[in-house]
């Protein structure tokens, strides 16, 4: 549905996004993650045709450029802050964009906004404004919804409600591109992860594949650490030694066992190290920073 191909975005003369390529299919919920200043918001703005870029962006095979927005008619977005006119009521803000008033009313009740929707938006709390911003993005059954930090200011109940709504829309075929610093929250809904750093996409994987990285490392203890160090070094196998515990990569575990058996070194422990989602992201970012330094 959405194809982003070799996109480079510039703000002034500065390149913010470098050669970004990925696809989003109907019903996908993409978690767009990365550190501050990585280019997440710029990438979202680029997809919305709001920045100068080269490369190709297509939505249902219709190109999106800075001057061609026809394909974006079926796209909803909440970027940075809710785009709300404070002098209008919540209902009037929605009415500015809504094509189907019955569907609009359904959305209002699904987001529990009925009690204050007729009040002027200037009196809304941060969470109420955020919900209104999300409602604007979800109007008119969009094909693609782009949400930048959607859970900002939402209480627990509202967070659960929005999560359910995202799943419900995705089940009907709406694709989502969501950025959030709250990784645990993203983890609950996303089906695919895009990790971005320094404007480059460094991971674009289905969440199941990404999860495999959780067991990528093993810890090893042997009865002779000194001989183990010598054997691993001799065979050029990467390891990190902490006390008498080695941290090794999962792809080396069989080779290491064979080497140590040949050396008559017995294993005391060989077990997978389970990383959580945040640790994997940090590891990947560190790895990329290392690669950059190597370059």
């Amino acid at each position: 549905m959405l194809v982003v191909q070799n996109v480079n975005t510039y703000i002034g003369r500065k390149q913010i996004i470098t050669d970004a390529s990925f696809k989003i299919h109907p019903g996908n919920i993409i978690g767009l993650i990365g550190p501050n200043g990585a280019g997440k918001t710029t990438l979202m703005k680029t997809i919305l045709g709001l920045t100068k870029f080269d490369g190709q962006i297509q939505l249902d095979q219709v190109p999106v450029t800075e001057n061609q927005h026809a394909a974006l008619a079926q796209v909803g977005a909440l970027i940075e802050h809710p785009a709300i006119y404070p002098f209008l009521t919540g209902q009037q803000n929605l009415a500015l964009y809504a094509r189907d008033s019955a569907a609009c009313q359904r959305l209002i009740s699904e987001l529990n906004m009925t009690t204050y929707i007729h009040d002027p938006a200037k009196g809304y709390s941060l969470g109420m404004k955020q919900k209104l911003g999300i409602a604007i993005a979800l109007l008119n059954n969009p094909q693609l919804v782009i949400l930048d930090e959607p859970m900002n200011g939402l209480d627990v109940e509202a967070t659960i409600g929005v999560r359910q709504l995202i799943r419900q829309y995705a089940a009907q075929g709406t694709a989502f591109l969501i950025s959030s610093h709250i990784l645990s929250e993203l983890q609950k809904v996303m089906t695919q992860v895009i990790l971005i750093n320094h404007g480059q996409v460094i991971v674009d994987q289905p969440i199941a594949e990404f999860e495999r990285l959780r067991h990528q490392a093993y810890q090893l203890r042997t009865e002779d650490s000194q001989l183990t160090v010598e054997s691993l070094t001799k065979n050029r196998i990467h390891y990190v030694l902490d006390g008498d515990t080695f941290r090794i990569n999962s792809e080396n575990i069989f080779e290491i066992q064979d080497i140590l058996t040949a050396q008559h070194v017995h294993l005391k422990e060989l077990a997978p190290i389970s990383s959580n989602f945040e640790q994997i992201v940090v590891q990947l970012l560190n790895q990329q920073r290392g690669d950059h330094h190597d370059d």
Partner: protein
Amino acid sequence: MMTSLRAELFKFSHQKSAVAGILTLILLMAYSVLTTKTDTTQVIFEFGAVQWIPIIMIAIGSTFFAMEYQNRTILILLYKNTSRWQIYLAKLAVVWLYSVVLTLIATLLTIVFKSFLFRTPWSALIINHQTQLDLLMGNVMGTLIYALFIVTLSFMLIMLLKLNAAVIGVGLALGFLGAGISVALMKSFTSLIPILRWNPLNMIFVTQQLANPPYTAVSHLSSLEIIGGNLIYAAIFIFLGYALFKNRRI
């Protein structure tokens, strides 16, 4: 375009500044009635409205565009529309229509005030064999033409300065000092009058000259020239303002 116009009209009519502009005009006209003796000049200049409307318009115009950036609604406005021209022109049209509304209100109030305070009939000949009504209509026309100049200028200035207060300051300076500076310039550099008479500050005389042709001696432009000058400046401001809007980072 109609959808954009409807949306802009909806937003504009729900802003407090739209009502505030009308109330300000009424109060200023009432102040003029209470503090100045009512005579023909007061009537044909709509109790000061001819001067106040451009000042109100520059504030209202820049505020109407600035609020889109302030509320971040410009993001939706831009990505939902392919044509940035459409956004710019729809806003411009709505704000200029507001100046028509202000001018109508000022004219109606003038008729009401005059009927109570000044008994000289509308058909009475005043200056250059023109009736009071002719003079009033000339001023109304001039105000509407100058409003277009002012609205396009306020849009260009808000794109350039990005600060509403600064644009309003420029508007006030233009309203109170513009004509005086222009006249002083032309008096100081008489040999440059053929060029200086086309300066933008001189365009404000359209609000007086259409009703009172002897003002030609002050502006050094014929009525047709000053109308043309205002329209050409409006076109320049539209193109420059749009170029700034198109390239403004969001």
